[in-house]
């Protein structure tokens, strides 16, 4: 390849993007996020849930841990917008407060697994050779473990609660990020701009973390977004099994668990409401993650 290739030459200089005013920034972000109404709707939905989680105690009309005995399975009304459950807890308030634990768990899983995965992937791909091969094998083995199984194992060993399953799932989710980062790094490492940094005399650590990593970060974030949805689903399942968040702390998974008996009694609302919340958030995270990934792929080609 010695002469100009037309694909290369046809790429023209981009005009600099106009800088939006600070006040209109969120709107501009949303518009720039693009991807059609589905993507925008999902982004708005996720933003809404994050706000709810942040301000839950101020939004929730009642204390969800307070059970009005004798007022179980109340229908929706002015006192209880979405009714109550068996123990007379306000479903709407539980949903609002439950947003916190339901989002914080997956957040912790994603933070831990991404940090670990980036470190492992970057290191092995950069080193190459037998280190890369050996770590690759270990990752393959980890892939074989379903995250939920590992989380249940952690509960069995360390007891119920959020901490042990979150750490176990962080390890189970790590290979997904590690494999992605490993592939991206191996590819990016062959680019001449990385070679130029090496020739300039920069240290490997500097090049890998300060120069290469920022160039692959968008793709890693897209993967993490998808992971978040799955982690939420797994943790909700754990709570549903009664192994995760323990009542009376409100959590969507355990709400479904407690509501399942009620479904059979013809009182489905207290189970359906948190279930819908789980589905909405997981779908929204998937849509946003896939969309980010697609658009990054488009930009690359």
């Amino acid at each position, binding site marked *: 390849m*010695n002469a*100009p*290739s037309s694909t290369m*030459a046809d790429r*023209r200089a981009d005009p600099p993007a106009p800088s939006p005013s600070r006040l209109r920034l969120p709107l501009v972000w949303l518009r720039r996020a693009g991807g059609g109404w589905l993507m925008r709707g999902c982004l708005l939905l996720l933003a809404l849930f994050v706000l709810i989680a942040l301000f839950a105690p101020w939004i929730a009309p009642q204390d969800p841990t307070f059970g009005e005995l004798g007022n179980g399975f109340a229908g929706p009304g002015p006192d209880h917008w979405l009714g109550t459950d068996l123990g007379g807890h306000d479903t709407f308030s539980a949903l609002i407060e439950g947003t916190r634990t339901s989002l914080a768990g997956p957040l912790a899983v994603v933070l831990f697994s991404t940090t670990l995965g980036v470190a492992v992937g970057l290191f092995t791909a950069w080193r190459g050779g037998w280190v890369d091969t050996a770590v690759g094998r270990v990752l393959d083995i980890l892939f074989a473990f379903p995250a939920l199984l590992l989380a249940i194992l952690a509960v069995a060993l360390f007891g119920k609660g959020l901490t042990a399953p979150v750490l176990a799932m962080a390890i189970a989710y790590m290979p997904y990020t590690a494999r992605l980062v490993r592939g991206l790094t191996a590819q990016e490492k062959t680019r001449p701009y990385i070679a130029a940094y090496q020739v300039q005399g920069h240290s490997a650590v500097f090049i890998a973390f300060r120069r290469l990593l920022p160039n692959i970060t968008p793709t890693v974030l897209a993967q993490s977004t998808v992971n978040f949805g799955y982690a939420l689903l797994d943790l909700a399942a754990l709570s549903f099994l009664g192994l995760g968040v323990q009542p009376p702390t409100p959590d969507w998974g355990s709400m479904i668990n407690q509501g399942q008996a009620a479904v059979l009694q013809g009182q489905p609302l207290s189970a359906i409401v948190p279930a819908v919340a789980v589905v909405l958030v997981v779908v929204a995270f998937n849509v946003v993650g896939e969309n980010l990934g697609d658009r990054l792929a488009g930009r690359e080609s």
Partner: protein
Amino acid sequence: MPLLEFNDLSVALPGMARPILNGVSLTVAAGEAVALVGESGSGKSVTARAALGLFPAGAAIGGHVRVDGADLVGADAGCLHEVRTGKASMIFQDPRAGINPVRRVGDFLTESLRLTGGWSRARAGARALELLTAVGLPDPVRHLRQYPHELSGGMLQRVMIAGALTAEPRLLLCDEPTTALDVTTQAEIMAILRRLQRERGLGLLLITHDIDLAAATCDRIYVMYAGRIVETGTATELLTAPRHPYTAGLLGSTPPLDGPLGRLTPIRGVPMGLLEAAPGCSFAARCPHARPGLCDRTAPDLARPAPVQVPASTAQRGPALVACHLADEIDGRPAMAAVCASPSEEDR
């Protein structure tokens, strides 16, 4: 009637400051090798695709493209299919991009014959063998059973040429066919293309950035800049007495392999992008002769310039046409001298 005829073809995309192609007229007759020379963004590849009736999606198209008499602008699918499968074939820059990597070379060559021509396997296979022999592959029987990755770039480009010939086209469009290849391989590919073109009386349109390659292999040359044809003439005319400052600039930018070695006289600035437009001559901003008030106001038409006083040996009065207001005042060599006079501002 020419085999390929562009008549005042314009292709414009919404959101671009200027049309991709602006009033392009060119002809290729049967048995004639013609080159279209231009830099990136000149529109030369769009022109090649237009000759197959392939236009950018959403483009506004004006003028006519005729292949063997059939107008491709606004043509129905049946007419386009007929042209693409029987009258014109295209060879691209990257042979690997045009071939399915998991299928054998033989399948690639026989597929269209068997599917659209309804040929039997044996007959198509014999034809493929014949074509591979025609493009000078050393061991055609073995190559038919090989996969694309087993062949070098030069060999694969020959397979692509063979593939382009399966439909027995009358017009061969070559879009930078040797740009990705080594110089010695380039020579072999060009030799094959020229031989096939002569033997079969094909019309050949060579799209290239290399004016020397164009001059060495083609009878006539069109020079394109920012979507317009700025000069056309025989290879000898263009190389010895270019009349358009852009053509002269291209020649002044190419280091010579022999003869005196002076400082190169590059064209200042960069080729015009699709987001830029000029009300007058699109080359005015880079032109050392540009006359304010004239060149930056009105776009020059492609016209026959007045003959220049040059020695009889180089004075070719062929079909030369130039799109330059000042073509009557400058001829190639003084133009280059004028560029030499101002080396200080060349690079900015």
